[in-house]
């Protein structure tokens, strides 16, 4: 695991010296800042009709606007993990070092989770702003961030798997975008379909997932889904990297 730590350090170092990091972080914060401002405006004007929901619960679980930037930025953030090494040829020096495929994948996966957290860290300011102008349900905020962490665990794992499978970064980004987009769309079925189909869609639903956590409800069904998918994708990434030697 020492080598996974070395891989993690290298991955973060290279991410934070790349212009990509700052382009993504800046546009991410602009997008969310505008969205959060619109929510506070809405709740300030419609105080009576808003009921139990608050700008924070609206932000974390309100609508598709929360997921649109994620469906774009997650592929952009994960595409380089392994595909960039293939394109630069450094996969050859990496895989001929005395380290296992698991260490490489776990190191890179851990790095992607750190990046995910860095993405969300500045949004804590929104909760602080709300606490200055009213009461904040800190339990619900904690649950929201926990939900985000679980969501990130499988988003980043899916992105990592695509980066292992794809020959280039662009192909990796497109594959992750399509995979996450399909999962998101299937989830919307929760609000459209009936019966068993609805049950299945609800299980996958990213919207339902975040709506539940934003209310402070930690639903274990979502946790099981997130973690299962994360473990599966990371496991497949290790397998795919091992299979490369036989290609």
């Amino acid at each position, binding site marked *: 695991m020492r080598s996974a730590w070395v891989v993690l350090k290298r991955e973060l170092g290279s991410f934070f010296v790349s212009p990509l990091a700052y382009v993504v972080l800046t546009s991410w914060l602009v997008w969310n800042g505008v969205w959060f401002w619109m929510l506070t405006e809405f709740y300030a004007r419609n105080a009576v009709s808003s009921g139990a929901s608050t700008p924070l619960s609206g932000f974390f679980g309100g609508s598709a606007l929360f997921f649109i930037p994620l469906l774009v930025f997650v592929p952009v953030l994960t595409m380089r993990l392994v595909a960039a090494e293939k394109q630069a040829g450094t996969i050859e020096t990496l895989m001929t*070092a*005395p380290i296992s495929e698991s260490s490489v994948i776990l190191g890179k996966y851990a790095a992607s989770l750190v990046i995910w957290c860095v993405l969300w860290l500045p949004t804590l300011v929104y909760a602080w702003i709300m606490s200055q102008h009213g009461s904040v349900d800190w339990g619900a905020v904690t649950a929201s961030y926990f939900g985000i962490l679980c969501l990130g665990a499988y988003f980043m794992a899916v992105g990592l798997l695509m980066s292992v499978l794809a020959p280039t970064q662009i192909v990796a980004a497109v594959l992750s975008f399509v995979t996450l987009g399909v999962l998101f769309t299937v989830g919307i079925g929760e609000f459209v379909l009936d019966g068993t189909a609805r049950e299945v869609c609800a299980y996958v639903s990213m919207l339902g997932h975040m709506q539940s956590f934003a209310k402070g409800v930690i639903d274990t069904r979502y946790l099981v889904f997130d973690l299962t998918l994360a473990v599966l994708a990371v496991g497949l990434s290790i397998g795919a990297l091992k299979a490369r*030697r036989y290609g």
Partner: protein
Amino acid sequence: MIEVERLSRLYGSRIAVNDVSFRVEPGEIVGFLGPNGAGKSTTLRMLTGYLAPSSGAIRIDGIDAVQSSIRARARMGYMPEGVPLYRDMRVHEYLRHRGQLKGVPDVAAAVDRCLELAGVADARTRIVGQLSKGYRQRVGLAEALIADPPILILDEPTSGLDPNQVRQFRELVRSFGGKKTVLLSTHILSEVEAVCDRVIIIREGQKVADLVPGDAETSLEEVFAELTTANAGQEAS
């Protein structure tokens, strides 16, 4: 010591390496010679664990390199063809990273030592991506030396170096004679004559000669041309 027995590698249905066997004794410097596309890089990639063989056995200091790949890799320094490096890192950062990855105990001292050995101490704080090809080549060599491995595998190590750098490189490799086992691939015949104790020639994936340069009555150039005529035109281009 490197022992290769009946090694073969297929890419799909194309045979890249076909039933190749050879040995490199401890402390020996061996040249791996062949026209472009003869299977040199594929063979070296199998030795270093980057590719799995389709059949055959590889032993690195007696360790089965297919079954115990990681233990075998720990005994080798490898400089791949084209010298892929992390271009966004500084030279000393890159070497420190690689040293840590290889589990070198005193990384700082190892970085200094291999920077000095490869003659890149003056480029220590420069960014890898901004270096000239000759410098990058030597950073790759420094990387191969970082863990002070008993075995060095170098794939076309002098391509991109100027004549002075080539001379320095040859002196360095010669200085390893008797201390490190070196297998270097090249298609520069004078290089083999200058540094190698022995030469293995492959053509179309098969070993066609295993000889000591200077032993043959004819020059290595004539031997090479004779053994690899089918591809001689391609080589010249």
